[in-house]
């Protein structure tokens, strides 16, 4: 075999190794670029949620004629993206004027850390701070199933959200919180959930309908939501 060709193959392997290392480093940064314990700002921002009534897992006025059900996983990066980019617009345009209310349904899609995150989020619902803590946890979102949802992260998220962190930790293993998780998983199965985030429009007496969105950016999502509730 031609020795020069073998040298060329070795050079190709070397060049490929360099390219692959760069790609892996970029990927590693992408998957860990969210702070874990030092974040001090929330994803949605307290301004968006300020003054909006919360009752358990529901955000908005109880009299709102339409309910937007949102299935989320606290470890899901697309859920975080939707909360950061689009939820503020939905709150401003639809929730604050009383057109809709939003019901949170947390489901385990990514893995074990999701369970712990959802326990903390539903426990915050007992203080009517579910949406604030969900938002704050997204600001702390770390690498999937790396054990990032520690007690310190939960306490920090509770502090950011203006909730009582100790009470959240104490309530996480309660039967009421477990029942909320079980209920949401059962609802997800009944709704044939395909992934998160997923959205369902509920406007009694009509049957609940999935909200089909082609993209999660504010303009596209708001247009789809606006059309669905008319």
């Amino acid at each position, binding site marked *: 075999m031609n020795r020069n*060709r*073998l040298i060329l193959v070795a050079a190709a392997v070397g060049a*490929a190794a360099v390219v*692959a290392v760069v790609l892996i480093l970029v990927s590693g940064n*992408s998957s860990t670029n969210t702070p874990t314990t030092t974040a001090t700002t929330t994803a949605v921002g307290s301004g968006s949620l300020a003054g909006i009534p919360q009752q358990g897992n529901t955000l908005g006025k109880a009299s709102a004629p339409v309910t937007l059900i949102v299935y989320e996983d606290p470890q899901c990066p*697309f859920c975080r993206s939707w909360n950061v980019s689009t939820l503020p617009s939905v709150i401003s345009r639809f929730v604050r004027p009383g057109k809709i209310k939003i019901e949170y349904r947390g489901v385990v899609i990514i893995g074990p850390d999701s369970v712990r995150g959802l326990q903390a989020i539903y426990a915050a619902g007992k203080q009517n701070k579910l949406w604030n803590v969900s938002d704050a946890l997204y600001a702390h979102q770390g690498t999937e199933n*790396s054990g990032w949802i520690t007690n310190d992260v939960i306490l920090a998220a509770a502090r950011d959200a203006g909730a009582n962190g100790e009470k959240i930790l104490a309530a996480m293993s309660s039967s009421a919180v477990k029942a909320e998780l079980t209920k949401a998983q059962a609802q997800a199965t009944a709704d044939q959930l395909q992934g998160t985030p997923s959205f369902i429009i509920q406007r009694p007496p009509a049957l609940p309908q999935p909200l089909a969105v082609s993209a999660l950016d504010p303009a596209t999502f708001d247009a789809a939501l606006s059309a669905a509730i008319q």
Partner: protein
Amino acid sequence: MKLRAAIAGAAVVGGAIATYLTVVHYAHLSPICTSGGCEKVQQSSYAELGGIPVAVLGLVAYACVLLTAAVRGLPAALAGAVIALSGTAFSGYLLWAQLARIHAICQWCIGNDVVIAVVAVLCVARVLTEPDAA
């Protein structure tokens, strides 16, 4: 010529997988899945690289390999080998991520891993056998 045709054929297969995953990503659809983990993998942070879906990067890579297969000569063979070997190494990393980080396997990713490995072997064979320029 046979090697170039084989590379092109394999790149088309890989490109088809990448196209499917790209469409699923942008349409927010669930991939057809028998392994049970496709949704989880597609929704993980490893599904994007610097904000670009990994499926799109795969599509671009297969298109480039296809282009190199269409061109005679050692430089094209070498370029194809570098792209395919890079893709194989990165696919290996993503396979590790599926097993160790995401704890789920996506059958489409495994299919791509096999295809890109085959393409890499064929591209290396081409570098070793491509006739010198006249």
